[in-house]
């Protein structure tokens, strides 16, 4: 037997891990050797084959047992290291007592041991044992990404819920009815509805631009310039305010490194907000990202803008739109919002091949994507067009005596088209009414005693526009009523300079931003802002009168000159 084993190459001393190998090979080769006369089969290491051999052997004659040493090799089972943290839901009510000693071991820096222990003791009595976490663990949790995301959502909802003071359980029977203030407001012309201001982000900054969301009429974006008192805070801030809830904090807060001079909701991209900055960069913020900084920025290069961008606007249709931006060096770029690394198209706005126009405001007439008007720092107004053989500045208007601060094209659609009309505001204390068909102004509104900072046509009423000036006045002019004085006027508390004015898309509310970083929203009385059916025809007559007066005025002026 020994000899056989040795011939197989197995010495009894050599350990062999698998039992099958030691048992069967001697049999198989032995039996085969017997049957076929010493023909050694190659040792088939496959245990199954060996097993077959041995089975056949067993069925036949008896087998010879050989001694073989088998070394036991014991592989310990793989240790699954687990930190048991089990849930405390009452359905599986079991006192997880084993958790406690583990937790104590894992506790490296017990910060408040005594409190925890006391709490633990109390909890022992309860059926469900909530565990305590160490301070470190808590801080770790609080710093985690998921917590930030949860907290951002949760706190937003809770803050809105907290601010709503609706008491659904109010009982009218045993209590005095509160005074109904609502009735008093109906007759008022303009009433202050909301004031939006943020202690940290809007204080000491000037509101540079306002825009209402085309998609959610309650959202309003306000951009701010730098805070001189806080040099470490970002220079540019844009806050999105929500009119729908009484929450006094912004819905979204966005920053960038340079003061934001203009901001707009990207019209066909509901999640994006575009900002034009003092450095010439155009930044894009996305409310889907958790960051407060911009998700995209245009490069600071000569191909884009290197001067402050006061005008940004998305023009076009859903399938074919561009972001148009103009900086104060006269450069106009048109961008594709998906790719801000370089402008799709750029154009230098120069007048008569020499002077670049320092554009401070821009407006596109309703429905027009090619022709637009621009106002410049030197008080001139120009029409221009984007495409075509004569792309660039087309006509110059008589303009103002001071920098143009605001431009607005007529946008109230109705039975008559007034889209050739536009109004401009300027540092020269006046607002002028123009038509693109003539280079002389149609009318001059000189009711203000301070720089007029912005002007805007009502989106719904054809003869109504609003203007704001540096003395804190917000004026509403209804040209069908009176062209000499505003039909409604309100002075903001504290008389801060009002930098911007924007009608809401409904035409019922007006937002204005002041130099103290406040955004004030006024409700406009129905009598003033809701147009009646005949407003358009009345406005036609008003324009005719204005035209006649202008011609008369010109004649008189001409006569005086001659005389």
């Amino acid at each position, binding site marked *: 037997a020994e000899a056989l084993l040795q011939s197989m190459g197995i010495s009894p001393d050599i350990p062999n891990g698998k039992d099958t190998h030691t048992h069967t090979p001697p049999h198989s080769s032995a039996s085969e050797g017997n049957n076929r006369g010493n023909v050694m089969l190659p040792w088939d290491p496959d245990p199954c084959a060996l097993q077959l051999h041995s089975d056949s052997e067993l069925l036949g004659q008896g087998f010879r047992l050989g001694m073989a040493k088998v070394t036991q090799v014991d592989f310990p089972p793989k240790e699954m290291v687990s930190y048991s*943290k089990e*849930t*405390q*839901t*009452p359905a599986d009510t079991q006192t997880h007592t084993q958790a406690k000693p583990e937790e104590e071991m894992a506790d490296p820096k017990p*910060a*408040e041991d005594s*409190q925890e222990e*006391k*709490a633990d003791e*109390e*909890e022992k009595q*309860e059926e*469900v044992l*909530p*565990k*305590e*976490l160490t*301070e470190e663990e*808590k*801080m770790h*949790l*609080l*710093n985690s990404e*998921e*917590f*930030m995301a*949860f*907290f951002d*959502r*949760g*706190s937003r*909802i*809770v*803050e809105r*819920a*907290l*601010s709503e*003071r609706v*008491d*659904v*359980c109010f009982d009218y029977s045993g209590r005095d009815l509160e005074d109904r203030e609502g009735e008093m407001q109906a007759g008022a012309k303009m009433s202050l509805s909301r004031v939006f201001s943020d202690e*940290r982000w809007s204080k000491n900054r000037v509101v540079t631009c306002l825009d209402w969301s085309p998609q959610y009429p309650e959202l309003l974006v306000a951009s701010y310039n730098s805070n001189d008192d806080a040099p470490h805070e970002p220079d540019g801030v844009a806050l999105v305010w929500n009119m729908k809830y009484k929450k006094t*904090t912004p819905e979204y807060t966005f920053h960038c490194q340079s003061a934001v001079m203009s901001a707009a909701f990207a019209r066909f991209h509901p999640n994006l907000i575009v900002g034009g900055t003092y450095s010439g960069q155009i930044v894009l913020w996305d409310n889907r990202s958790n960051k407060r900084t911009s998700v995209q920025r245009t490069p600071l290069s000569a191909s884009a803008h290197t001067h402050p961008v006061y005008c940004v606007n998305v023009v076009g249709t859903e399938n074919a739109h561009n972001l148009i931006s103009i900086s104060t060096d006269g450069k106009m770029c048109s961008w594709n919002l998906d790719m801000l690394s370089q402008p799709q198209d750029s154009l230098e706005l120069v007048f008569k091949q020499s002077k670049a126009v320092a554009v401070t405001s821009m407006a596109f007439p309703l429905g027009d994507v090619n022709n637009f008007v621009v106002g410049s720092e030197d008080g001139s107004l120009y029409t221009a067009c984007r495409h075509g053989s004569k792309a660039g500045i087309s006509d110059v208007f008589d303009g103002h005596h001071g920098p143009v601060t605001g431009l607005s094209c007529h946008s109230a659609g109705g039975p008559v088209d007034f889209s050739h009309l536009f109004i401009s505001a300027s540092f020269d204390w006046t607002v002028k009414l123009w038509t693109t068909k003539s280079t002389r102004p149609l009318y001059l509104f000189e009711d203000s005693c301070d720089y007029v900072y912005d002007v805007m046509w009502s989106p719904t009423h054809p003869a109504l526009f609003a203007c704001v000036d540096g003395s804190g006045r917000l004026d509403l002019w209804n040209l069908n009523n009176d062209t000499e004085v505003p039909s409604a006027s309100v002075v903001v508390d504290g008389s801060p300079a009002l930098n911007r004015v924007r009608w809401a898309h409904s035409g019922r509310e007006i937002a204005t931003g002041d130099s103290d970083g406040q955004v004030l929203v006024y409700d406009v009385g129905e009598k003033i802002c809701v147009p009646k059916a005949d407003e358009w025809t009345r406005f036609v007559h008003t324009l005719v009168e204005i035209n006649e007066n202008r011609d008369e005025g010109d004649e008189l002026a001409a006569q005086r000159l001659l005389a």
Partner: protein
Amino acid sequence: RFSAVFIFSPKQAEVEETLKRIQTHKGVIGTIVVNAEGIPIRTTLDNSTTVQYAGLLHQLTMKARSTVRDLDPQNDLTFLRIRSKKHEIMVAPDKEYLLIVIQNPSE
């Protein structure tokens, strides 16, 4: 209540600010942040009250959530508000955490 050694990241500071703002809102009695197992991780109330609120509201939120999902598996709980004679308890739930705010609405 909490040890003075904090490691503040800027985001953490914002969280602190928001929590403080919620806590100082008119009528708010307490604010508690609870994790998925019902363990309070931030609170402005004393320990025993916190533990009580956290435990009970955690159970209630789980029950409410399971109710909503049983009625319609595609649905989920987004906000829970309990109005009682004396208080209003608001719970903003999430997969992992709960934000509990107790307010006295009559103030």
